[in-house]
């Protein structure tokens, strides 16, 4: 059943969106969609129910070039446009937010800072391995007591003799943490916030998994615990950035992908609801013929379409290097918000069937509750936009 309702071949395109894409952008989207239809949709409900990440997909996605695809070819990546990258996130999240989160973290939060802030040796070592999915990364910024205010972090790194650093602290809500071969850990130093690459197996470093989630159940979430972890400066310290702008730069990349990805989950739920409304008969007519359901469907497709065009314009500006983080905030805030609402409305159209795993709707809806909060909460992005237009930061 899930297959029948979930493998719709084409994206929802009400406003001639596909006509705005280049040939290779279309091909990237179709390649990702084919992959998701064949490899993800048939298995994802079970993984979500069992709370397991479909780890067998990691090397497949690596072979297809899904990790860090916008980075240059010389590091083993594909050199895609930002829009093509966004379309990839859209299609992956049409499968599941957990899968898109995995790729987002690997590409935007680990490979991107290594590429942008790392030494040449760090880039040469990590990027080709991570592009293939042979090494997995995670990103440690958020702490138990510092979420929206990461600048207050307690994790500390102290310089030691012999070119070493000692790191102590705890990070929380870390996607991929337990399965990662390397963590990008942000810590306070005498010089301000710095980024460190901490490898799995380093003495004093552990990453226990967070259990009991009702959201992102097909994704690994962890804590990172660093107790007197000693790392080598040359291998570990990201030399080319100091201060909060380091991690915030990464988040801008990831938020950009989320602005696209969330729409994928919404598209899946909208198409499922439309199909259901057309085939479900009540009072001798398909429920799609009743005005209340049509109002929902019209709202859903309208918001999905507006979100697509917002993401596309942002992507074009990103490629032209004329975009701002506050614009990314608007796209992340709006697109996740409307996507969550689209999934909720879809659930009501499906009635009781909407709560079953025969349909993808409730899974997407629950996933987006996390996406609404992570990578800058909906409220924080609202305040960033407020600051942008008024010049007054209301969150301090």
């Amino acid at each position, binding site marked *: 059943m899930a297959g029948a309702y979930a493998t719709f*071949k*084409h994206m929802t395109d009400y406003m001639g969106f596909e006509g705005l894409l280049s*040939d*290779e952008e279309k*091909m*990237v989207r*179709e*390649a990702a969609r*084919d*992959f998701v239809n064949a490899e993800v949709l048939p298995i994802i409900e079970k993984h979500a129910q069992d709370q397991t990440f479909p780890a067998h997909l990691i090397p497949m996605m690596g*072979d*297809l*070039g*899904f990790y860090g*695809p916008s980075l240059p*070819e010389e590091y083993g990546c*594909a*050199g*895609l446009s930002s829009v*093509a990258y966004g379309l*990839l996130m859209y299609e992956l999240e049409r499968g599941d937010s957990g899968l898109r989160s995995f790729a987002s973290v690997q590409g935007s939060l680990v490979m991107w800072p290594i590429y942008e802030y790392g030494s040449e040796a760090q880039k040469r070592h990590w990027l080709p391995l991570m592009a293939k999915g042979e090494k997995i990364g995670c990103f440690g910024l958020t702490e138990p007591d510092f979420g929206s205010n990461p600048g207050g972090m307690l994790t500390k790194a102290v310089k030691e003799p012999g070119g070493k650093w000692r790191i102590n602290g705890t990070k929380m809500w870390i996607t991929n943490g337990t399965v990662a071969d390397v963590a990008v850990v942000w810590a306070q130093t005498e010089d301000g916030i710095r980024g460190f690459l901490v490898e799995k197996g380093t003495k004093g470093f552990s990453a226990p998994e967070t259990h009991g989630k009702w959201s992102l159940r097909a994704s690994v979430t962890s804590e990172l615990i660093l107790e007197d972890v000693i790392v080598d400066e040359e291998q570990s310290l990201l030399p080319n950035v100091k201060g909060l702008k380091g991690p915030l730069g990464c988040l801008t990349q990831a938020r950009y992908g989320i602005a696209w990805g969330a729409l994928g989950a919404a598209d899946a739920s909208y198409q499922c609801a439309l199909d259901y409304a057309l085939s479900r008969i009540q009072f001798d007519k398909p429920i799609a013929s009743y005005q209340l359901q049509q109002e929902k469907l019209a709202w859903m497709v309208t918001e999905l379409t507006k979100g697509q065009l917002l993401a596309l314009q942002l992507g074009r500006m990103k490629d032209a290097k004329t975009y701002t983080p506050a614009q990314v905030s608007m796209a992340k805030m709006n697109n996740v918000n409307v996507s969550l609402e689209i999934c909720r409305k879809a659930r009501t159209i499906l009635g009781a069937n909407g709560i079953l795993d025969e349909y993808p709707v409730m899974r997407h809806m629950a996933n987006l509750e996390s996406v609404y909060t992570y990578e800058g909460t909906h409220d924080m992005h609202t305040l960033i936009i407020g600051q942008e237009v008024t010049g007054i930061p209301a969150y301090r």
Partner: protein
Amino acid sequence: MKILVALKQVPDTETKVKVAADGKSLDPADVKWITSTYDEYALEEALRLKESKGAEVTVVSLGGDSVKDVLRNALALGADAAVLLKSDASDPLAVATALAAYAKDKGFDLIFAGNKGMGGDNASVGPMLAELLGIAQANVVVKFEVTDAGFRAEREIEGGTEVVEGALPAVITAQKGLNEPRYASLKGIMAAKKKTIEEVEATAPAGATAVIALVLPAARPEGRKLDGDAAAQAAALLNALKDEAKVF
């Protein structure tokens, strides 16, 4: 080794087909176009030979500009070169003749194609192409290998498998089961951007046949509810099966 793969662009199987106003062609509105699935098996087999034995793979398709999508996709999957034979021919013999005119004297060791084009289902271009070129052929192939002497192919036949051997050059038409086609990788897609599609005016003769009408199947009549208690319904059903459906 030089390999040619003939690809056909066909309407997506999910397309809700509508007949155009002329009554003999598809209404192209809302039609999404894809590579015929059997041709995907053909291309995959060529790409595997390229990887295992070393080969230059050229893909070719007949049609207008829209067909470039199919060719570009094949380049993204790993084909080395792509040729668009510009033509509006659709009759199988005209298509085969145009393909033969292109392939002749180019030294292809193998020509792969789907055993039929999805939707049209003529299953005749491959065999005609082999005949026009005067070379060996094996059709509806589910297993294929290149041997020292030529090729060995397993064919799906009614109730079993037929194993044939032949000399190269040859035309091989692919059947489902031959292989599992790959996905285009993002690097492949970016690499395809740098390759060009050669455009050639096709030399296709007038068709040997012409489509004169395209008719959709009649809509299924509405269901009928039988009235009365179980015994009455059973009797009515029995009568309907006997007198109307004439099942017995």
